[in-house]
C-alpha cells in the first residue's frame, strides 16, 4: 500500500492566495446613468445591512436552521437585479438573500421568513435557503447544488416558446461547476439557444475547500465555456459597474435571440460558508486583500470620484438602516405560523390529501 491518493501537495488551507484584481479605472467612465449607480449603491447597502442584521438575529437565536450570507458579494446580485426587467426570471441558491432583495422583494417578507413567521414570504415553510417571490420574478432559491441551472433553462424555454423576450438568470457558485447538472444545463441551453444567463459567482471556495484544490482548471466556469461553444467571460465581481456592463450585454444578447451566456464573476465572501463557519481555511493575506477590495467601499469611492457628495451616500445608508429596522420589528411582531400550515400547499388543491 502507498500513502493513498491525494489531490494536492500542500497542506489543507495552505494553498497560494488568490488576490483580487485592482479596480479598473476605466469603469469610472462607463456609460451608466448616475441614477442607476445610486440605485445600485442603495441596493448593495440594503443587501449588506440585511445580511448583517440577519447575522445579529442569528446570534440572538431568532434565526434558526442554517443561513448563508452574501456579505462581500453584493455587487453581482445588485448589478443583475438592476439590469433585469421586472418580468425576467431569477434563480438563486441557498445563498440567495441578496438575489431576492435585488428583484425588489420587500424586506418584511424576507425577515419574516428568516424568523419562521407567518409573515414570511413562504409562510415559514421554506426558510433561508428557499426564498422565492414569483410576483417579483424571483423564481426560487435552491439548496441542492446544480438543479436550478436546469430549471432556469426551463423558464428560458418557456419564454422562447411563448414568444416573449424574457430572460432567465441562474446564479451559482464555483463549487457548483463540478456537479453533473452544470454540464447538462450548459449543453442543453446552447443546443436550444435559450435566453438564459449562467452566472458563476466564484468566491474561490466551495464550503471549506479551495476551489482550486478540487477543480481541474483554474477558472471553474470560464475555462469550461468553450466546452459549450460559449465565449470566455470573467468579470470583476466586486465592482457593480463591471458586472452591470457584462450583465447588460448578456441580457441584451439573450433577449435578442442570441442565446445563452456563461459569466464568471470573481468575488469573495467576508465570512464563512454558513453561519457556523469561521472560514479559517483561507490565507490571511487573501482575506485582507479582498476585504480591502470590498464592493461597497469600491463603489462608494467611485461615486465620490463621480461627484456624488458623502452626505447623499450617508443619507442612503441611513434610510436603508431605518427600513431594515422596521422590517425586523415587523417580523418580530408577526405571529408564528399556525400548525395547520404544515398541511397546506402540498398539492394544488391547497392541501396534503393523498388518499380518500
Amino acid at each position, binding site marked *: 500500500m502507498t500513502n493513498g491518493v491525494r489531490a494536492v501537495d500542500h497542506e489543507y488551507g495552505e494553498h497560494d492566495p488568490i488576490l483580487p484584481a485592482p479596480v479598473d479605472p476605466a469603469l469610472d467612465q462607463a456609460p451608466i446613468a448616475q441614477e442607476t449607480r445610486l440605485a445600485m449603491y442603495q441596493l448593495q447597502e440594503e443587501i449588506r445591512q440585511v445580511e448583517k442584521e440577519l447575522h445579529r438575529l442569528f446570534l440572538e437565536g431568532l434565526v434558526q436552521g442554517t443561513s448563508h450570507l452574501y456579505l462581500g458579494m453584493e455587487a453581482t446580485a445588485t448589478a443583475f437585479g438592476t439590469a433585469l426587467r421586472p418580468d425576467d426570471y431569477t434563480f438563486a441558491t441557498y445563498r440567495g438573500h441578496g438575489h431576492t432583495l435585488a428583484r425588489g422583494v420587500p424586506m418584511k417578507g424576507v425577515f419574516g421568513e428568516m424568523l419562521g413567521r407567518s409573515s414570511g414570504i413562504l409562510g415559514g*415553510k421554506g426558510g433561508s435557503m428557499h426564498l422565492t*417571490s414569483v410576483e417579483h420574478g424571483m423564481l426560487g432559491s435552491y439548496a*441542492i447544488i446544480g438543479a436550478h441551472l*436546469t*430549471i432556469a433553462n426551463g423558464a428560458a424555454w*418557456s419564454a422562447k416558446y411563448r414568444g416573449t423576450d424574457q430572460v432567465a438568470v441562474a446564479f451559482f457558485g464555483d463549487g457548483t461547476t463540478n456537479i453533473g447538472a452544470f454540464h447538462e444545463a450548459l449543453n442543453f441551453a446552447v443546443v436550444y439557444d435559450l435566453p438564459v444567463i449562467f452566472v458563476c459567482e466564484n468566491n474561490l471556495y466551495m464550503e471549506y475547500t479551495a476551489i482550486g484544490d478540487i477543480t481541474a482548471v483554474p477558472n471553474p466556469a470560464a475555462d469550461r465555456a468553450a466546452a459549450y461553444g460559449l465565449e470566455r467571460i470573467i468579470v470583476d465581481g466586486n465592482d457593480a459597474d463591471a458586472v452591470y456592463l457584462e450583465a447588460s450585454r448578456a441580457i441584451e444578447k439573450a433577449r435578442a435571440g442570441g442565446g445563452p451566456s456563461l459569466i464568471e464573476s470573481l468575488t469573495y465572501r467576508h465570512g464563512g460558508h454558513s453561519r457556523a463557519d469561521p472560514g479559517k481555511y483561507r490565507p490571511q493575506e487573501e482575506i485582507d486583500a479582498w476585504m480591502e477590495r470590498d464592493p461597497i467601499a469600491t463603489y462608494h469611492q467611485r461615486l465620490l470620484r463621480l461627484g456624488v457628495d458623502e452626505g447623499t451616500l450617508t443619507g442612503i445608508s441611513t434610510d436603508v438602516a431605518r427600513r431594515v429596522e422596521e422590517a425586523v420589528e415587523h417580523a418580530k411582531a408577526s405571529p408564528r405560523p399556525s400548525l395547520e400550515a404544515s398541511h397546506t400547499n402540498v*398539492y394544488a388543491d391547497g392541501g396534503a390529501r393523498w*388518499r380518500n
Partner: protein
Amino acid sequence: MAELSYRDAVARGIAQEMERDERVFLIGEDVAGAGGVFKATVGLLDQFGPGRVVDTPISEQAILGAAMGAAMTGLRPIAEIMFSDFFAVCWDIVVNEIAKARYMTDGQVDVPLVIRSANGGGARFGAQHSQSVENWAMAIPGLKVVAPSTPEDVIGLMAASVRDEDPVLFFEHKTLYSHKGEVPDGEIVDELGKAKVVRKGTDATIVALAMMVPRALEAAERLAEDGISAEVIDVRSLIPLDTATILGSVAKTSRLYTVEENPRVLGWGAEIASIVADEAFWDLDAPVRRITTPHIPLPSSAPLEDDTIPSVERIHREVKESMD
C-alpha cells in the same frame, strides 16, 4: 370504438392534449424523429412540428429541469424518461425540486407537468432496464403517481394527468405496449385517484396495477373454476390512492391480496396492506397476502425472469392455497 394498442394509445392521448392546449409540448430522448424507442410517440413530430415535439441530448436532469422551469412559467410539459430505471439519474429534480416546489414556496409555484416512463419487467432487459419503480415515486410527498393497464385508461389518465395542476409520474408498462383494447372514439378524459373494480367477486379482493392487472384477471378466471369468486381492482393511481374502493371491497370479501411487480420490501403493496390491516382490521378473515417479485434485482434470462415476476399461475396458486 376502435381497437388500439397501448403503445398507440400513448400517442393518441398526447395528441389529444396537444391539440387542445398549445401550452403542451413533449420532450425527451428520441421522442420526436424516431417516435420513441418504444414507438409510443410515432406521428407526433409530423403533427405538431419540431418545436413542440423535441428530441434531447442524454441529459435527464436537464430534461426534467427544463420541464419544471417551463411548467413554473406557464407551459404544460410532458417529459419522457425512456426507462423508469433512469429516474435514478435525475431523481433529485423529481423528488427534491418538482415534488417540493409548491410546498417550499407555500403555494407560489405551480408545477403542472407529466413525466412518462416505460416501467416494468418481462422483456428480458436485465436488472437496469426492467425495474418497477412506482413505489419509489409513491413514497415522495408532492407527486402524483399513475400506472394505466389498458389503452383506454392510457388515454383517459394521460388527459387527466396533463390537465392536473400537480406533477404526475405516468408509468407506462413496457410489456403492455403491444396489448390491444377497445377504445371509444372522440375525447377521453378520466380522473386521477379512482381505482376500478375490473371484476366483481365476493370471496377475495385482488388489488393489482399495470401488467399485474391482466394477470390478476386471468388468475381470477381460474379461481372461478375452483369455486372462488375473486374481485379484481385495478389501482391505476397510487397517489391519490383510492382507499375507499379497496376498503369497500375488503369489507365485502374479508380477504385481500396485493399483486405487485415491485421487489418485495416496501413495494406499494406494503402501504395498502398496512392501511387495510389497520382500517379493516375487524373485517379481515385472514392476513393480507402480498404477492410480489422477490426482493432481488431482475435477472435477464427468460426462465429466471418469468419465475420472479408474479405470473398468472403464481397468483392463482397463492390465492387458492391460502383460501383452502
